């Protein structure tokens, strides 16, 4: 889309884009190109000498069992966060869409976990599920479950999945509710007249009509689980026990900032960039086509 009416000036448009362009170049293009370049080098931690090695860093990564394990953990983690987060949010949105009275109140009460910082959410769940003090730990002990996420890899993963889902539910809920409310009431009424119950109506009418929203949320949630959950992992488990919750974005940080393996970390960054770009392209292609039933 273009404007018919435009202004004339030789210098003004450049002056107007200059601030954003300057920040983008200095803090975005320069670091991103550095990451690309670094990923092709090997150097020691003091950067005294470096050697160009083409794709050796990438080859090394894909031969590193720790990195492959991190890939697997990330895949399991993001699948769980996405599936559980979307199902719970869709369930709540479908309920909230049915009620006449109090719908606004439920909405208000359900949206504000969005405002809680991921790290704060992690700390709250660590307190609830603390091996010694946690109130939920206490209840679990009573029913015979020995809970200690500091020792048990599966429980550590469960903890970060719960915290990540809790944080993201508001967002999913809002989009699902908006999607459900935009479905024409006449469709639902016609189905009801034909004798379809609420359950049948949901799965044969509402759910297919929601597919654009669901697909959009699917991509957003995968991106969320891949990148925005760093704070949860760092504040709750620090990747432990024994790397059980070390997702890819945490490993970039751990290898780069804590272990000072600059080139390995840069290569990991490049792989992550490729993943984000792929996800964004999928999302844009889909939105452009605007598939609707």
């Amino acid at each position: 889309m273009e404007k018919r009416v435009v202004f004339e000036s030789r210098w003004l448009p450049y002056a107007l884009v200059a601030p954003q362009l300057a920040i983008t170049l200095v803090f975005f293009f320069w670091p991103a190109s550095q990451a690309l370049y670094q990923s092709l080098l090997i150097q020691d931690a003091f950067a005294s000498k470096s050697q160009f090695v083409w794709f050796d860093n990438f080859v090394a990564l894909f031969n590193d069992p720790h990195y492959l394990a991190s890939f697997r953990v990330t895949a399991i983690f993001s699948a769980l966060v996405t599936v559980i987060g979307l199902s719970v949010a869709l369930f709540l949105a479908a309920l909230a869409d049915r009620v006449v009275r109090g719908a606004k109140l439920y909405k208000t009460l359900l949206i504000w976990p969005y405002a809680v910082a991921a790290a704060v959410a992690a700390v709250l769940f660590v307190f609830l599920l603390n091996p010694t003090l946690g109130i939920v730990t206490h209840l679990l002990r009573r029913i015979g479950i020995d809970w200690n996420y500091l020792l048990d890899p599966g429980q550590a993963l469960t903890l970060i999945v719960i915290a990540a889902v809790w944080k993201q539910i508001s967002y999913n809920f809002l989009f699902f509710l908006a999607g459900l409310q935009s479905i024409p009431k006449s469709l639902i009424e016609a189905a009801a007249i034909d004798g379809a119950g609420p359950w049948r109506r949901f799965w044969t009418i509402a759910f297919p009509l929601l597919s654009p929203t669901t697909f959009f949320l699917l991509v957003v949630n995968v991106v969320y689980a891949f990148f925005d959950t760093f704070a949860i992992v760092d504040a709750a488990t620090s990747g432990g026990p024994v790397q059980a919750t070390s997702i890819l974005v945490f490993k970039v940080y751990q290898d780069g900032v804590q272990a000072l393996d600059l080139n390995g970390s840069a290569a990991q960054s490049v792989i992550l960039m490729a993943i984000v770009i792929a996800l964004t392209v999928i999302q844009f292609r889909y939105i452009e086509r605007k598939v609707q039933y």
Partner: protein
Amino acid sequence: MVERRPVGTLITHLLLILGVVIIALPLYVGFVGSTLSFDQVTTVPMQMTPGTHLVDNYTQVLKSGSTKGSNAPVGTMMWNSLVMALAIAIGKIAISILSAFAIVYFRFPLRYTFFWMIFVTLMLPVEVRILPTYKVVAELGMVNTYWGLTLPLIASATATFLFRQFFLTVPDELAEAARIDGAGPMRFFVDILLPLSRTSMAALFVIMFIYGWNQYLWPLLVTTSEDMYTVVIGIKRMVAGGDTLVEWQLVLATAMLALLPPAAVVLAMQKWFVRGLVDSEK
């Protein structure tokens, strides 16, 4: 609802209330914990009703922080978080509205190049380029400064796109009338476009304020001195003291303080918040 089913409605409400309770549980337990003494909070099982140490705990953390882990006062951290959130929100809106104006209302060489350069930043979250970005900030001497904390996060395309979309819907007649009346582009921008953009700006402000306030990875890298910590980082430093030593009542009081401003913004500006969320994902 289509048909009347009193039992169904009742079950729906019960399930919704259950959902709300489960979602509110961590917040409630956190709040209760922040009102107890150290002995009470470490008793298993902890009591589920608020105690009497609310004022003590909150004044303690605000003035002098915790005694273990980190003892920077949370008051300073709250201030840092506020500066960071406001700078990011206002900075993003300011630079984006200017560049969107240039891209929509002018024809100039390199217009598409600039557009794409800004567009690409949508794709790469700061998480994937942390180390090189840190290096740049360090070379510019911006570690432990508000500049270092905020500038790298201001570079984002979301707001530019939102304003671009909005400007494209503004009727051409307005710009035409302004030109006929002899108003220059900046006059048109200030007197017509800015007032029209108020709702978009409010919606973006809410989203960006929360985004800025809740930042974690970047402040973790860029702030090494305690007086530059943001409150989200401060909590993490308090917990890092070790399991049995953690003064949970103070950590939780800090957590409550950390979530209060963004929660208040969401609740007070709910309409803008929902709009901003939906708009910024288009």
